[in-house]
């Protein structure tokens, strides 16, 4: 996802966050009583809750802050417990959709593949570290249980569609929701859709498809309140992209100040039962928070407003443009542009440019998920103009930061420095202490070792001193290694200096020269002042790797076919075979000539091929942003499309893109085993049927090249290990599918059963309004094939058929989980069906629907000014603590009070009077609040609310104008509005 985006957003727009008010179970006579789900929700009532289930399964199966569950059954019980907690916070009344990631579009698979390869490697390291710790402890005399010893870190790669674990999860979720439907009276009207891993699509996007499909039903209630649970910052964009304003996101509070210390993994290995329980308890008290899309929309309406436009400003489309601009700063499907990054206010830069582009192009960047390439080009052109500056600025910032950091560190740790606050002229301790002769050459036979090497190799030194030949050899080797870099003639060096000074490398400059210059720069660090930063992070190893680049680069040079239109052959996997590298270091974005260096060092093509490569990269990238946009707004446009490079182009390269013809072939999602074979490393082969495993590990396998044991990770200028790019080869779809499908006939039946595409499952209780209809027509004597049902009756629309996996009335559902004390269930208490979403006719439009009643505005004029005039808004976590955001429609009319109307005439008159004579006015108001006597016509079945109390709350509310306006609609309260929902219960709670 886009991890730092969430933080950035909540600092910039603080009022979008509010705490979850949580009820805790009452303990009576030592028995913990369950929460009453049917009682009013202190956080406001909610219609639909969507669970992005991977956000629950991951933390439950391999938690960070507590010991992991011992068995898969325990994991599933943890999932139930967590889900139950989430449900008690949200308390949806109409629909609960549980979406587990299914087979993803190809565009996403590349990222999944990188993650899984890395997590397999991490798991290996973790197991090794564990063994190390255990061994040490045993050495200390601690006795360690055999059980503990034999335990391996659970491979989280099992959370991928098609694995036995996902199958188990699907069954478990079906059981648990059935259990709740059958036993919890608060759930009786809830309709549960389970979209497990057999349904293609990523969890959150299956949820988006669902919301879009519901919106397309004409009976859809435009004031439906939605909540999505998930950890991904993408959900914010998705929430905005639905154009459903009553939308919020539920997640764990990442800002919570932990009062307790985070346990380290090695401390959790051999815990006593008591310690374990304590950690579990701690973990289960983690606070949650809401992120309100409605408030974010309010902020954006201030942020994106452009005064004096020559055409009608359309806020909904401005939101789409904003979402689009956020994609540029990071998304799961494309690498972000090198000059943009969420943490560097890139979005602000883009919004500023957008505001200058829009009045000129007179149209938006996007329309219902399709790009308008002309304004996009204009936007990128302006960004391109600033790109060089941005790189420089970023670099200067980094250098300063690093210097400050170093200074602090040295002041703190150097005993040679006087601790007086004034004295800053401390000595820099030498890193190398080689022995030199009088000519300044290293003394013969002396070891060229750094302090660090001395420290690391002290054991060898000791041994060598004792006469151990092996150890001495190792020391010698290290020393040679260190000196190895320094093997250039002074002639070469001079040349390179010249070159790097005159800078501009054009396409003709030979690769060779650049490499030399690069090496020189590394060696000649003392001279190049700005490189002082780099020296610190660079270790000898990577320098060595750089040297090895040389011959291979030459080869690439010869391979190239002159003047061909086919994009030049790119070495995606990098030249180094493993470990961490940082290609940004050699590209030096802050120095002229970075453009060609970028393409050469990251794509590994010779200079002459850059224009052709650039053209193809641009085309693919534009395809990419088009694909992503469609994916968010209309659904998956192509299952097979992907961005075929590891790096993004520069903004300045987007020229003449408006004539590009972008179209996609829908294609078909992979089957689960095909996806597993595309994303799993050989080490996770245990999640696959045995027949496939040799394909990943046998050196003679036709597709062995897809599963490298080692692969390099390019830090690409980033600091944290997880931010790097895993340079893995892209999968060749045809070759993979051919090889995998050849094995299908050898699968067992149960294995075959996991390799399928399925429909969503729908579960309802026997109290649901549709129960009789569905039961009689699908499981009765003369079952029909399919039943269509609409939104109005139950808040859900779609088609149902008999459950694919089978369901029988008058029977028993056996609990699939051991150890939770969960009972078997009678199948007469609930109903299981297969569910298909209604078909969306035509394109989804970015509009609010008719009858949409806005929520109570939350921003004060000061808040809006902060955004418009860019005041610094100091973020303060305590602000969030007291922020309460009402949910759902406020009042009962979709129209704001504007001058000229009948009701607004009285409203404005009253407002003036209110300012003068507040007391009298209040009485007048109360005289108005009379209920109509016996209205003749029962109008609406949405009339489920009792609105009498809700307006009292507004009497002393001075900042909500629309709130007061509602009084003028008071008379109709008894007859109700078809679109308004009751939310007085919450108001009462607040009072």
């Amino acid at each position: 996802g886009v991890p730092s985006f969430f933080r950035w957003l909540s600092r910039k727009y603080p009022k979008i966050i509010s705490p979850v008010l949580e009820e805790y179970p009452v303990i009576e006579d030592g028995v913990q009583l369950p929460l009453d789900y049917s009682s009013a929700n202190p956080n406001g009532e909610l219609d639909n809750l969507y669970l992005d289930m991977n956000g629950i399964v991951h933390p439950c199966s391999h938690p960070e802050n507590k010991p992991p569950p011992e068995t898969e059954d325990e994991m599933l019980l943890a999932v139930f417990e967590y889900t139950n907690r989430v449900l008690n916070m949200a308390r949806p009344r109409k629909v609960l959709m549980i979406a587990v990631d299914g087979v993803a579009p190809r565009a996403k698979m590349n990222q999944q593949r990188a993650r899984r390869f890395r997590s397999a490697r991490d798991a290996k390291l973790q197991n090794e570290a564990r063994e190390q710790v255990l061994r040490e402890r045993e050495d200390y005399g601690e006795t360690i249980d055999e059980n503990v010893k034999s335990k391996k870190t659970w491979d989280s790669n099992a959370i991928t569609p098609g694995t036995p674990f996902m199958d188990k999860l699907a069954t478990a979720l079906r059981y648990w929701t059935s259990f709740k439907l059958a036993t919890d009276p608060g759930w009786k009207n809830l309709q549960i859709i389970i979209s497990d891993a057999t349904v293609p699509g990523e969890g959150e996007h299956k949820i988006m498809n669902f919301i879009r499909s519901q919106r397309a039903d004409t009976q859809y209630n435009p004031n439906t309140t939605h909540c999505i649970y998930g950890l991904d910052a993408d959900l914010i964009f998705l929430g905005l992209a639905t154009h459903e304003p009553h939308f919020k996101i539920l997640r764990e509070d990442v800002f919570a100040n932990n009062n307790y210390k985070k346990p380290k993994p090695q401390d959790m290995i051999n815990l006593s039962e008591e310690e374990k329980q304590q950690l579990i308890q701690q973990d289960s008290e983690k606070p949650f928070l809401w992120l309100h899309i409605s408030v974010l929309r309010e902020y954006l309406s201030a942020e994106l407003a452009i005064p004096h436009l020559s055409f009608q400003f359309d806020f909904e489309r401005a939101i789409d443009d904003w979402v689009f601009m956020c994609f540029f700063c990071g998304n799961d499907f494309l690498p972000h542009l090198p000059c943009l990054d969420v943490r560097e206010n890139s979005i602000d830069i883009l919004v500023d440019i957008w505001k200058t582009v829009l009045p000129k192009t007179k149209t938006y960047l996007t329309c219902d998920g399709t790009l308008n390439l002309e304004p996009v080009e204009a936007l990128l052109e302006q960004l391109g103009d600033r790109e060089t500056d941005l790189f420089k600025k970023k670099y200067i910032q980094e250098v300063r930061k690093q210097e400050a950091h170093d200074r602090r560190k040295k002041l703190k740790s150097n005993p040679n420095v006087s601790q007086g606050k004034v004295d800053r002229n401390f000595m820099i301790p030498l890193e190398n202490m080689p022995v030199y002769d009088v000519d300044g050459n290293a003394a013969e036979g002396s070891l060229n070792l750094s302090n660090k090497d001395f420290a690391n190799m002290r054991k060898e030194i000791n041994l060598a001193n004792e006469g151990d030949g092996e150890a001495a050899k190792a020391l010698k080797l290290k020393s040679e290694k260190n000196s190895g870099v320094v093997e250039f003639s002074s002639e070469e060096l001079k040349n390179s200096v010249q070159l790097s000074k005159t800078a501009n490398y054009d396409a003709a400059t030979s690769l060779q020269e650049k490499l030399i210059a690069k090496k020189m720069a590394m060696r000649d660090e003392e001279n190049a002042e700005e490189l002082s930063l780099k020296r610190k992070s660079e270790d000898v190893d990577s320098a060595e790797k750089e040297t090895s680049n040389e011959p291979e680069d030459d080869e690439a040079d010869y391979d190239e076919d002159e003047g061909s239109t086919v994009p030049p052959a790119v070495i995606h996997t990098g030249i180094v075979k493993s470990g961490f590298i940082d290609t940004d270091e050699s590209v030096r974005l802050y120095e002229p000539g970075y453009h060609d260096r970028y393409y050469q060092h990251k794509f590994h093509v010779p200079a002459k091929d850059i224009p052709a490569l650039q053209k193809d990269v641009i085309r693919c990238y534009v395809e990419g942003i088009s694909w992503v946009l469609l994916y968010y707004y209309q659904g998956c446009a192509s299952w097979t499309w992907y961005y075929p490079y590891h790096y993004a182009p520069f903004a300045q390269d987007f020229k003449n893109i408006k004539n590009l013809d972008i179209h996609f072939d829908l294609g078909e999602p992979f089957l689960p085993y095909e996806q597993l074979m595309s994303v799993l490393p050989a080490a996770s082969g245990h999640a696959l049927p045995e027949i496939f495993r040799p394909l990943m590990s046998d050196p003679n396998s036709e597709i062995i090249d897809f599963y490298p044991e080692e692969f390099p990770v390019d830090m690409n200028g980033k600091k944290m290990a997880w931010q790097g790019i895993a340079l893995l080869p892209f999968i060749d779809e045809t070759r993979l599918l051919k090889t995998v499908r050849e094995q299908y006939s050898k699968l067992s039946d149960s294995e075959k059963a996991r390799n399928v595409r399925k429909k969503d499952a729908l579960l309802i209780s026997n109290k649901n309004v549709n129960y009789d209809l569905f039961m009689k027509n699908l499981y009765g004597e003369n079952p029909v094939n399919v039943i269509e049902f609409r939104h109005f009756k139950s808040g859900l629309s779609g088609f149902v058929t008999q459950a694919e996996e089978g369901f029988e009335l008058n029977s028993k559902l056996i609990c699939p989980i051991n150890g939770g004390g969960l009972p078997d269930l009678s199948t007469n208490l609930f109903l299981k069906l297969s569910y298909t979403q209604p078909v969306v006719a035509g394109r989804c439009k970015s509009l609010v629907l008719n009858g949409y009643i806005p929520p109570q505005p939350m921003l004060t004029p000061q808040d809006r000014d902060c955004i418009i005039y860019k005041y610094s808004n100091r973020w303060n976590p305590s602000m969030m603590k007291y922020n309460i955001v009402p949910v759902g429609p406020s009042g009962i009319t979709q129209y704001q009070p504007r001058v000229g109307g009948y009701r607004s005439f009285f409203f404005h008159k009253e407002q003036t009077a209110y300012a003068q004579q507040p007391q009298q006015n209040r009485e007048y108001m109360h005289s108005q609040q009379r209920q109509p006597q016996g209205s003749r016509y029962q109008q609406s079945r949405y009339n489920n609310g009792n609105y009498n109390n809700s307006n009292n709350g507004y009497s002393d509310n001075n900042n909500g104008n629309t709130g007061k306006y509602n009084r003028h609609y008071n008379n109709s309260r008894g007859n109700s509005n078809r679109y308004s929902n009751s939310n007085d219960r919450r108001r009462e709670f607040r009072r």
Partner: protein
Amino acid sequence: MVLSSSLFVQKRSTTTALKQPKELGHYSRTQDNGFLVNDDSRLAYYYLPDTDLDKKLDLLSGIKKFKECNTEEFDSTTLHGLLSTLEEYERRKSKKTKVDIITFRGIIRKLISSAFDSSQFNPVNFRIVSFDGQLFIKEVKTDASETSINKNRESLQARAYYSGYKFEALATLSLPLPLVPRTTLEKRPKKIINNGDQFISMVRTGIGKCKILIGAEVDCIFDFKEDSDDNLKHYAELKCTTMVNTVSDAHKFERKLFKTWLQCFLVGINRIIYGFRDDNFMLKTVEEFTTSEVPLILKNNNPQMQTVCVDAIKWYGAFTEWLLTSIPRPEDDIDTIKAYKLIFENNHLKLTEIESDDEEYKQLVEGEEILSNSFKQWRKDLRK
């Protein structure tokens, strides 16, 4: 002996027992004045989001291209479309619909209004035939050229007339929103407007003992249409009027609101949406009302209109009762058709029988002025 009777407009019945209106059927009228029975192709769907009101919508744009469909040749007051729809309904049910009066909503509204307005502003000139035990009431076609917008499109009257249709066009779509492409939506302000396309709902209702079948033009669906026949609760009435800036504007609006209430409560449409325009016919704001709250609004805000709604219902009860008792409706005589004239004069409704020597008689009784031949034949067939 020629029947003649009159009813003083202050007469009130004691009953206020209204029947719950029920929609029995519908038909569409096309631009070339055809009738499509059981066809909802001309039904419109409401969509006017709040932000559209910031767009300075001009209610006069396109007035030159307006297509006036109520031409000289066409009798816009004809009952034939309604009768075809009724016939189709009865064929389906294989029985006669048990109602006493069959007419249009406008007629009942004018009859009710006669208790509140002078005949100058509320001319009543109706013809009634008694056939097969039921009364069929039709308005006499007025000289189209007099009211026609074609005469002078610059006149204030013509502009006001047009702005009403324009407001409807700006606030509705011909299909539900999910089915409308964005381009259509964006071109909506440029749509050419006509007053021929109409959707008419056939509603059974009644007051006291009188059962009435009413045809009523429906402006739009507010939320969604159900597949069942009865969509009354989903319909909305659209109106456009001048802005309210003073207390006297407010009272003027309240009188308009009362008329709209009459229109809506008669057929059980519970949603009224008012557009407010300035003197330059720019749409300024929109407000929503429910029909059932209107009596309370009037009662609370206008001392002169405290009881106007209850009065209207009592008068409605009184004149329907009077019509039913004054005009003989022989149940067993399918062959006799009698014709009457109903006018409003000197605070009285006046009913007189039209004799066979009257120039109108032939058209009314033998011709198709009110009843179509096909409908007469259907009722005769039904008896066999």
